[in-house]
């Protein structure tokens, strides 16, 4: 992100808009909004340097509530809008706010293609495993067999793992965090913003109206430690209240091992590496509750030139080589002829 002014102190209030927040009382979206505003305030970058682009959904109302530039676009297309904005304006720090329906159902394709382009935008995907705004149909992240208005006998398709999809789409930064874990949430958003390239953050978010408690296993402080692994670069994959369980690979699958039992030591555990460990990252993305604990934190953070850098780089390159475009020559084209006055 480029900063045009001297950093000055901003407060959370500087990032709040004058619009009343219209989410249901108790919705997980509130805590994400608050975390984002806090992180922005800490950055010291003025509000006009940010743009928030969203699709449609409860989550996608987000831009109205931050006092930055913003566009509440159409369902599923926020990433495409943000891509155009960022390519046109590499100086504007661009966020995409989206939901599990918005980004993975109707917008799934844009998600993939945005990631593989590696546009320098920060994507926050509010995953509540449900369509909130349309009043509670199952979403692509709802578990198999989910009973909702549209699936009274249970849903029939296998849920999508957003992290797996992101990796398949060559994401350079992927992370997961939780609305009800504010410290982790803020830290993760900060890391995502700092990443140069597309950062893709899945945020577990509770929809207390249509899907209350669906993510309790990860959100509830009482059980969280047993069900999630907080990833740390260079640290072994350990979890459990007493950090005594770890993850090993048996050549085919990841499994849970009790450290100290069956001769398993910490050295046998997989060690988290955010960097160039594609195969390992591929495995991480397949970890799903309840079979395995789910990783939270930064799965992967690698460097690759960003799309807008490359686009602008080609332009600079050609100008360096041939000079700025000459409009006269362009209009003239490659070959011309002259028609003289009659009789001449």
């Amino acid at each position, binding site marked *: 992100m480029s900063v*045009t002014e001297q950093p000055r102190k901003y407060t959370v209030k500087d990032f709040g*808009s004058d*619009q009343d927040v219209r989410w249901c009382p108790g919705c997980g979206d509130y805590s994400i909004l608050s975390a984002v505003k806090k992180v922005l305030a800490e950055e010291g970058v*003025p*509000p*006009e*340097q*940010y*743009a928030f*682009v969203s699709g449609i959904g409860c989550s996608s109302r987000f*831009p*109205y509530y931050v006092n*930055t*530039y*913003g*566009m*509440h*676009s*159409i369902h599923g*297309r926020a990433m*495409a*809008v*943000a*891509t*155009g*904005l*960022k*390519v*046109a*304006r590499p100086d*504007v720090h661009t966020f995409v706010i989206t939901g599990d329906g918005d980004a993975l159902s109707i917008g799934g*394709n*844009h998600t993939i*293609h945005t990631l593989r382009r590696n546009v320098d935008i920060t994507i926050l995907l509010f995953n509540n495993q449900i369509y909130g705004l349309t009043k509670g149909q199952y979403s692509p992240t709802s578990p198999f067999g989910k009973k909702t208005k549209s699936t009274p006998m249970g849903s029939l398709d296998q849920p999508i793992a957003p992290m797996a999809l992101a990796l398949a789409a060559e994401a350079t930064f992927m992370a997961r965090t939780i609305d009800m874990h504010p410290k982790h949430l803020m830290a993760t958003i900060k890391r995502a913003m700092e990443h140069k390239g597309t950062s893709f953050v899945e945020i577990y978010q509770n929809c207390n109206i249509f899907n209350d408690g669906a993510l309790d296993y990860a959100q509830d402080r009482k059980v969280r430690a047993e069900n999630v692994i907080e990833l740390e670069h260079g640290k072994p994959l350990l979890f459990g209240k007493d950090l005594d369980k770890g993850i090993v690979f048996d050549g085919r699958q990841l499994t849970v091992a009790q450290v100290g039992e069956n001769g398993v030591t910490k050295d046998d555990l997989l060690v988290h590496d955010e960097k160039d460990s594609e195969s390992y990252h591929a495995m991480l993305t397949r970890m799903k509750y309840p079979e395995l604990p789910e990783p939270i934190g930064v799965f992967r953070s690698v460097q690759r030139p960003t799309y807008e850098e490359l*686009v*602008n780089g*080609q*332009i600079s390159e*050609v*100008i360096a080589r*041939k*000079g*700025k*475009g000459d*409009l*006269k020559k*362009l*209009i*003239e*084209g*490659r*070959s*011309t*002829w*002259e*028609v*003289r*006055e*009659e009789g*001449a």
Partner: protein
Amino acid sequence: MSLEAHSQKQREIEELPQVTIRFAGDSGDGMQLTGTQFTNTSAIFGNDVSTMPDFPAEIRAPAGTVYGVSGFQLQFSSSDIYTPGDVVDCLVAMNPAALKVNLRDLKHGGVIILNEDGFTEQTLKLAGMEKNPLKDGSLGKYTVHTIPMTQSTVRACEEVGLTGKGAARCKNFFALGIVCWLYSRPLEPIIEFIDTKFKDKEQLREANTRVLKAGYFFGETAELFTRVFRVRKAHLPPGVYREVHGNEALAIGLITAGQLANKPIFYGSYPITPASDILHELARHKQFGVKTMQAEDEIAAICSALGASFGGALGVTASAGPGIALKMEALGLAVMVELPLVVINVQRGGPSTGLPTKVEQADLFQAIVGRNGECPLPVIAPQSPSDCFQTAIDAIRIATKFMTPVMVLSDGFIANSAEPWRFPDADSLEPIEVEHPEETNGEDGSFLPYMRDEWLSRPWALPGTPGLMHRIGGLEKEDVTGNVSYDPENHQRMVDLRQEKVDKVADFLPEQEVLNDPDGTAELLIIGWGSTYGAIRETTRRLMRKGTRVAHVQLRHLNPFPKNFGAILERYADRPILVPEMNKGQLALLIRGRYLIDAKPLTKVQGRPFTTTEIMESVEHLLAERGKVAK
């Protein structure tokens, strides 16, 4: 001594006012190149020219089949012309399929030049011909020249060591040589082209040049031709000319508009026939700061363009019918957020995938009213390849002045056709003024993104500007503040305002011109739009020669209609009004509905342009009906 002077001397030379030639062969036979080169040399020679390529939807269907036939028609003339010609004077056919597909357009007594080597038992079968037309006398009413082009070509190539398939592939230049000779065209421009194209391929350069000349000399030497033809230079307005295709002119126009507005063009697009060439052309001009993005689909294409516009660039996207269909939802968003955006539809045959490489004008309704909700936007249609240049500039001028998406309706005919263009001097073009506010506009120091100026246009405040932070989106917004509003009266006001704003564009536009009728006494009025311009113009001229005066209105602005359009209609209300369209009467319906005037549609949906004959017949029929038979 030039080749021309040298070779024509012994033959009888017949002067012709204009000639229409069609080159036809397999997709792989290079007919497009051949036609283009013939056009080029004719233009440089000083004729007016007009072209129409016609290629199959298949890339390179198996050689010899009828659906693999690729054609290129051009008319060149000693006066100004507007169409590639109704009927063909001379048909060059490289194989039986090419002959079969194109024969019906050849005039009685026309010239056929055939590649004898292309007529084998196998190719006859592939073309589904039971008999060999070279032998069964079925071509009796034409002047047929059967020439062993492949053999002659191979022989010419041998001299420079090129053999086999590579050699045979040069045969289009042999055909071109013959035709140049027959119509007294200079070879120099073609040789120059060959020199540039094969700059680094010595052997090919040499081979093609030799083959071209071999064809030319063959014409001269062989006893086949008793006469040659000449079409004198046309009396075109003096100036410097170039040749330009429609898609090319659109691309150049967009870049020019960007320069005039001092803003980068962002072009988001997904390939589709016949619009892809705009992307290809723009991608070649990065030195103008043009940013092109091949998006994952048409929706991403328009959305990225809209995002770029939000950021202050000139967002542009293009497609053809099926892709435009996909853009409609996002176009509604563009109307709602009131940002400049240009959407180009290079119309092709529909519905659905339809006839991807053919021309049609059946997307007019889609452009004007094909969205959900009351969703008005300006629609402009270029009327010729070179007019695409100005159309692109106009589109961006309107889009930025009125903060609105604008739809440009080109078509597959304009896109691929070429014509001489007396291009303007870049310095003479009027700049496009665009302002971005830096200050708040509310009384209390707030920024009101939906406060309007005298054109009902809202401010284009850019991300990065301190103090002007605001949010836009697809929900209905409150007048002035732009906040989300579900208020009934506000909705009505906003729907009305969006409509009024588009209507106001008419105040900004020049009045509509009526061609061919300075004193308003013409017997009939023809109203056209888009690429029918040429055929209608040529028709009115032909009618004039026959003593019938017909007024001609060619609408470039289809929404809103020009301010004086109602008055024009009223003026002609007592005479027949004819609306030729390559659809089933879409513009006619709009005119009838809006002005309650009995405009008569003349429709054609065949994937090819009107001929002047078709329009003329319709005019004469209407006049006859009125008891006033055209003299």
